[in-house]
Structures are given as C-alpha cells and as structure tokens.
C-alpha cells in the first residue's frame, strides 16, 4: 500500500485515476489545483504522484520544477493530452519520472505508478536478482535457471531484468517497449509478444508453467512463484 497524490483538474479523469489506484490497494489524495498540489506534496510524505500537465493557475511543469527545486524526490507520473515528443521531453526534463498521454487506460496508469514505486524501492547497486530458481547476475550479465546457465542476447537480458525487477506487477506492452527499448511510439502488440515468446522459450522448463504470464488485454506479468 502506498500513498499517492493525484493532481488532476478534470473530475472524470481524477475519478478514474483514484478508482484504479484504490483498486490496486493504494491510498489516494486528490487535489484539483497545481498550487495546492505543490503545497501538499511539500508538506506530506507521499510515495508517488500523478500530475496533470495542463492545470489552471500553476501548470504541471511548474509544479514538478518547484518540487525538484525543493529537493523533493517524489516520483511523479506526468499525464497530458499533449502527446508530442517535445512535450514528453519537456515533462521529463522538468523533473517528471514518467509521462503518460491522454487518453489512457486507468490500468496502464496504475502499472506506471507501480513501476515508479518499485524503482524507488529497488536498490540500484544490487549485484544479483533472484526470483525462485531464476538468478540474474547483473555484473557478469549471466542468467541461470535452477543452476543451469541460459544464454540471452543483450536485449533479451534487459527485457528479463525489467520483468524480474517488477515481478508480480502487470506490465503493458507499451510500458515494456518504453522502459526496455527506450522508444516512445506504439510498435504494435505483436512485436513485444514475439520477444516475450522468445524469452519464454529460453527460460521455460517443460515440467512447469511459464514464469512470464500473459494477462489478457493488459500485458505481461513475471510471477515470483
């Protein structure tokens, strides 16, 4: 359970964000005003925030800039109807941690919040990641399943690392593409499906179900058990 600050002026959008975050077991605080949001974020210990890019009065960019100027490292997911790459760059440069374009599926938004929360918890200098009998040696870039080495290509390794770091979370194909490959466009669902299929082929064992689970209509989840 995490405390999430929702700064959004559109009541319908705010309603969807709040409902989706609460469905994921988070506690939400909603404010419709940028200045008020900045004040609450400064005073109260939130774990993450969603921030509308275009707010009346103090816009989203100014809010996140003010937060960073006050050395508040609260993870911020910026949400905007402006999908231009320049707008995305501006949002991230101002100090946003992720950028989501309206309209969005509330589930997609919740996933991104989970990714931000996990990133905060994750010790960056971990040398190995272990989930069940899967071990990823981040320094040597080696992977073993039940002690057996698995040879992965560069991007396969990065894909697995991302899935494992977010084990238990459902990740949309778009999030996977953005976070693993670093490009911000829709490459089509099939492209990510085939990469996942290839990874499964290398990791899976015939006697047990795949650790990478397809979540119908949403994306993929790496199961810890």
């Amino acid at each position, binding site marked *: 359970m995490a405390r999430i600050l929702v700064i959004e002026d559109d009541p319908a959008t705010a309603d969807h964000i709040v409902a989706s975050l609460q469905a994921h077991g988070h506690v939400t605080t909603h404010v419709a005003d940028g200045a008020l949001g900045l004040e609450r974020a400064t005073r109260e210990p939130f774990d993450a925030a969603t921030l509308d890019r275009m707010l009346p009065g103090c816009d989203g960019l100014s809010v996140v800039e003010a937060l960073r100027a006050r050395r508040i490292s609260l993870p911020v997911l910026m949400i905007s109807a402006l*999908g231009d790459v320049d707008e995305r760059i501006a949002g991230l440069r101002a100090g946003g941690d992720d950028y989501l374009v309206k309209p969005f599926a509330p589930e997609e938004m919740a996933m991104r919040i989970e990714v931000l929360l996990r990133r905060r918890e994750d010790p960056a200098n971990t040398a190995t990641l272990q989930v069940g009998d899967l071990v990823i040696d981040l320094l040597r870039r080696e992977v073993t399943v039940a002690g057996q080495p698995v040879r992965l290509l560069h991007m396969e390794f990065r894909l697995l690392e991302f899935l494992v770091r977010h084990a238990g979370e459902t990740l949309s194909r778009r999030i996977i593409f953005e976070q693993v490959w670093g490009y911000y466009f829709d490459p089509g669902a099939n492209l990510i499906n*085939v990469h996942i299929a290839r990874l499964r082929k290398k990791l899976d064992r015939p006697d047990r179900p795949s650790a990478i689970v397809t979540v119908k209509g949403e994306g993929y989840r790496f199961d810890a058990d």
Partner: protein
Amino acid sequence: MPIERLHLGQIRRTSTFRLTALFGLVFAVGVIALLGLIYGLSARELTLRTDRILRVEARRLRASSPETLPERITSALAHSTSGLNYFALQSRSGEPIVGNLTIVRSFRFDHPVNIAAQPGAHGPLRVLAIEAPTGETILIARDIAPIVDLRRRILEILIGSGMAIVVLVLGAGVLLSLAPLRRVRDLQATSRAIAAGRFDLRMPVSTRGDELDLFAGTVNTMIEEVERVVAQVKGVTDAVAHDLRTPLAHVRGQLERAIALPDADPRSVALNRAAMVDLDLVLERFGALLRISQLEASGRQAGFTTIPLAPLLDSLCELYEPLAEDAGVALRLGPIPDATIRCDPHLLFEAISNLLDNAIKFSPSGGEVVLGASLDPEGVSLTVRDTGRGLAPHERAAALRRFYRGVDAAGIPGSGLGLSIVAAIVHLHGFTLELGDAAPGLIVRIRAPAA
C-alpha cells in the same frame, strides 16, 4: 544561419549587375563617341590650319618672278625660325634645284598630302605641291609632328578612359550587386527555415523600403496567415486530443470496471470485451492520426543530432528479427557504410520500424526482408526491401495517403497509417521517400541529403 560565400557567377547573374553593366556600356559608348568627335574635329582643324599656312606660302611664292623664285625660297628658309617649314624647287624631271626638302615622287598640284617621317631627314610632313610659271614644281611642307603627337595623345586618352570606364562599371556592378545579393541570400535562408516549419521566423525587412522590402513584407503577411492556419489546425488537433480522446478513454475505463464487477454477467463481459477491442482500434487510429498531425505541424529540430548509421540499423534489426522469424521471413541487414546521418534518432527509428513492420507483414512465409544503406555523393540512402507482392505504380502514391490499405491487405492487421507516419517523419527531416519495384516485392527508399 551559415554564411555562404558569394561567387562571381552569382553576382554576374544579378539584375543589379546587369543593369549597371548595361548603363556602363551606354555611358562608355557615349564617352568614346564624344572623345572621338573631339579627336576628329581637332585633327581636322589642325590639318586645315596647316593647309592654310601652306597656301599662304604658296601664294607668296607663286607671285614671284621665275628668276627670283630660287632666291625667294632660300630667303623663306632663312626666315623660318621655327624649323617647321620645308621648301623645295624641283625641275620638271624631279631634280632638286634649291631648298631643304628632297622627295622623289610625283604630286598632284594644289592638293596637300601627308608624308611619313624620314629618319635623319625630316619628321612627318604635310606637303603642298604647286606648279611654278616656268613649269618647275614648288614643294611647300610643314612638319606636323606636334599634330601627330597631339592626335596620338587624344587616342591614348580615348583608349585609357574607355578601359577605365569598363573597369569602373564592372567594379561598381559587383559592389552594387553585393548588398542586394546578400539580402536575397538572407531571404533565401530564412524562407528555407520557414519551409522547414519555423513559422516564428520572418523575412528580414530593412528600413530602405525598396523592392526587396516590399517583396519580403508581402511574404511575411503570407507567412503570418500560414502560421495562423497551422496554429488553428494544431489547436483543433489538441482539442480533438483533449475533448474526444479523453471521453473515449473514460468509456474504456468504465467498460473495464464493468468487466471487473464481481457479479458481472458473462455475456455482458464478452460484449464489453468486444466493445473494448473496437474502442482500442478507434483509439489506435486516433493516436496514429494525431501523431501524423503533430509531426506535420511540428517544425521541431530540437531532437536533431548526428549519429552513426550502423548502431541504429543494428538495433532495428535486433528488434524486428524475432517478429520476422515468427512470420517465417528472413530479416537481413545489408552492408552498412561507415556513415553518419543528421536526424532525430527516435523519429527515424520509428519511421524505419514502420517500414520493417510493413515489409514483414506483407512478405510471404519463406520471403526475405533486407534493411540496407548506401552512401553516394548526394547523401545517404536507407532501403527496406521485401519479397511481397509489391505495389503497382499507380498504387505507390496512394499508399502514402492516410488510411490507404492495399488490395491484398485484407486480413492483415494495421491502421493503414504506418506509411503516412513514415512520410510525415521523412518530410520533417527534409528527406525524400520513394517507393519502387524490387522485382519481386517493394523497395522503400529514404534519401537523406549529405550533411
């Protein structure tokens, strides 16, 4: 704005230079005609004056009696202190009788003629021959060296001033052409930047109010109108993004929540899921359309950087190789030259992704897709070649239009907007996009001019 060197060839073609040269030519012809007239008149006057002197002397000698004629000639010579006068009396057979002039030739009486200089004897002469009453020939001559000198000087002045005028006119033409030409170059550079989407720029206008300023002012008015229209289109796009996509997303959210209800009827869940699939298709097309509009309205060059070609194409191949393998298509990277390209790497990646996605989709199982690059003096060419059915020549232009789906595209997923996105990205970069026949299959070529 880069400063380009002005070449003489460009200067020579300017209207200012041509007008100055034409004006200079007319001026030079006028000056030369005037000086020529002065030359002709003064030469004629000097000759007439010499002839008058010769005729006065001739009259005086003719009036002498035949007996005293030799004596009068000797006396005239003695009195000539200038040293310019020459006299001679010749017998009928041409033998010299008296005088300081020896010319062996026949003369027409009473018609003065010029005789060239004889080194050691005399300078250039004007000679008048008259017949003495006794039948001998009297030659009266005058040295015309000063006149010849004067003529030569006038001629020299004529040629010198003509040449000076030509040089001055050419120089003035070059100088006068430089400033307008520089301004035209500035206008050109600005118009190129505006054509690339920088609608915030305006044509430079000086305080002179000349014809170039009039032209720049007119163009600026036009750009303001274009900027207004583009802003309007972008405004409509943003409004569409905000006002239509957001409620659609809300509908999707509500459908999701309806599906998640614990007591949901399985039939309505199935219907809701089908509605969500349709909604996703609408949103996907919406997203692609907005993406194209953003790219077309955008003049952004902020993300432009020069990158090596090979790593970009390598990572594209790596990204699409599993998709190709899944479709039973061999994806191959052709030989890549050691070249760089100035682009927005994210956008170029997106464009080639779309091309690879299409090529894999439209290639039959067992087919081949080749991503290649080549370098020539004109720049870099990036090619994606497949072994699909290709496009008939009349279909190629249509394929770049929005929502175009080939006649064989039924059953192949896609919004029909992929190539339009590619075209918009290519246009944004100032590159060119060509669709050709790979016999069999389609070859798509992106040409980037040399940096």
